[in-house]
């Protein structure tokens, strides 16, 4: 809500109080959600009266704490959060302008640095890019970081996930038309047997082989065949193993996967790395399938992605994202 300067009647206390609380609300909203509402900040906070700002500080305990030496002090944590929100537009622009190879290489490096909670980004990049795009990202990784991506993943990731992740980032899948011999049904059966046996799936070398070397075309057929022979979806049956589940979703049902990631990112209390996904997904899919993701999002959650972004994001950041989505029109 933007209050236009000069539209408020002066001298009316009740109006004044209400207007103040409106402004407070507007300012709080301007700082919450994704990005910042630059226009409101300029219009409201830009108004210079020191009294107004004091009232803002006093009336906003989540941003300002009463210091023992009698002044209202910015909450340090809140400043950190604000810094992040102010940077969201910048980060989106920088990421958007980047060559896709550099972009993916940097995303993967960052995910490795951030640790296991961000490993889903490795899976996302490795599985939703074309073979040539992933190859390009690997080349860029050499230039940027003077190591190969598989080298860094192998030395940073420990435990059973390592094998899966190294294999996924190293894949150079066949992408042509269906080959004559197509054993999708047999592969589906193999996976079903492993799942039924209860053994740890990330350790099973056949599951790894199928998911990390077979072509996407074949894997989509495996997904379908699995549904036919078992009655449930493969990614649901892999729920106990989030990495494998993410892998299957990215390879077989990417629009669903991205919709879920976006839905989580757009939640009020989303944490730092979950929130980052909004920029990442929109920027990396804007040239690819953002329209299909928008439709799938609507199907899954009953609201258009664009509407959700409209409601949850602010300012230039919001406008930029919406423009990226509308690009194809």
């Amino acid at each position, binding site marked *: 809500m933007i209050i236009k300067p000069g539209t408020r009647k002066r001298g009316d206390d009740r109006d004044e109080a209400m207007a103040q609380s409106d402004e407070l609300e507007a300012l709080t909203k301007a700082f919450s959600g994704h990005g910042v509402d630059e226009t409101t900040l300029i219009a409201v906070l830009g108004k210079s009266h020191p009294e107004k700002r004091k009232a803002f500080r006093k009336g906003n305990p989540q941003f300002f704490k009463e210091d023992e030496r009698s002044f209202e002090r910015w909450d340090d944590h809140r400043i950190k959060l604000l810094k992040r929100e102010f940077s969201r537009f910048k980060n989106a622009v920088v990421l958007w302008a980047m060559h896709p190879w550099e972009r993916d290489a940097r995303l993967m490096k960052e995910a490795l640095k951030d640790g296991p909670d961000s490993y889903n980004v490795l899976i996302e990049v490795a599985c939703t890019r074309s073979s040539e795009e992933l*190859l390009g990202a*690997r*080349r860029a990784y*050499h230039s940027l970081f*003077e*190591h*190969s991506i*598989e*080298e860094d993943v*192998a*030395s940073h990731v420990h435990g059973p996930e*390592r*094998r899966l992740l*190294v*294999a996924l980032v*190293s*894949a*150079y*899948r*066949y*992408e*042509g*038309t269906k*080959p004559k011999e197509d054993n999708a049904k047999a592969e589906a059966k193999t996976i079903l047997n492993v799942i039924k046996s209860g053994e740890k799936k990330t350790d099973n*070398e056949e599951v790894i*082989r199928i998911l*990390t*070397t*077979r*072509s996407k075309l074949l894997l989509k057929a495996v997904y379908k065949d699995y549904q036919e022979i078992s009655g449930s979806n493969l990614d649901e049956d892999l729920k106990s193993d989030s990495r494998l589940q993410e892998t299957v979703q990215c390879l077989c049902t990417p629009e669903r996967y991205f919709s879920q990631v976006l839905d989580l990112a757009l939640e009020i209390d989303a944490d730092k790395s979950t929130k980052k996904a909004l920029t990442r997904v929109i920027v990396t899919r804007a040239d690819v399938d953002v329209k299909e993701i928008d439709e799938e999002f609507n199907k899954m959650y009953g609201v258009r992605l664009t509407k959700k972004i409209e409601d949850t994001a602010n300012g230039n950041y919001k406008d930029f994202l919406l423009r990226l989505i509308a690009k194809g029109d």
Partner: protein
Amino acid sequence: MASLAAPGHFSPTEDAEALQKACKGWGTNEKLIIKVLGHRNAAQRKQIRQAYEQLYEEDLVKRLESELSGDFEKAVYRWILDPVDRDAVLANVALKKSNPDFPVIIEISCVHSPDELLEVRKAYKLRYKRSLEEDVAAHTTGDIRKLLVGLVSAYRFEGEEINARLANSEADVLHNAIKDKAFNHDEVIRILTTRSKAQLRATFNRYRDDQGTSITKNILVEHPDDFSVALRTTIRCFNDQQKYFEKVLRNAIKRAGTDEDDITRVIVTRAEKDLKEIKEGYYKRNSASLDQAVAKDTSGDYKAFLLALLGKEE
């Protein structure tokens, strides 16, 4: 250096005509085929194929396949393919054997530059409509699968810079893994399938400095099994590929029997690369010339073709 003797100037059209003459009518003039193809490098052979296609509207490769037979045919077929296509074919043949020929896969992965290996993977997809790693995985199991899939999938960093501290720590990792009766392979596989070649060599050197023996010797002593053979092949290809190829030839020549695949493969794939150095290494090691050894062990047109690639003068 190449052992192949190819002329600076040549005419693809003349060569194509000569080859057509060699194949025309009853019988084949193998000597002419050897005279031409046995003295042309990869770029020249490609032009000859194109000229032949233009002149006679036929694929030279297919023609030769139908005209020739036996070990000679196999050798010429491999020779005339584009080098990356050739490696794709060699890999596929190796995998399809009832006992997959792991050294071939290891050789292809370790001897090429990262970009060359990528080209081989591209050629493989084009020819077989599956990725190389897909087929390697489908024809192997267990730790051999982990090792070989890792080797063919690697796109190693190509810098010459090495991190001495890392070489030290990874030499220790290798030492501990090998020393351990259980010999957990995962760390060894990780290092061998992801580090840059320069870094690997530094690590192996560090190992030798620390332990007093080469890592391949220690692996052999502690764990004589199939997987270890594959590990040692990998390490030897990285460390000194010419020495490795010399040994392959030496063993193939020593072996009684009719399987000339190894001899063909090494000579055909290295003739334009480092067969000269391999010959020198062979002489040093065996006090006999490779040419003579090959001549004694093979016969007919096949022999003549191999000797041409080895650089024998007309």
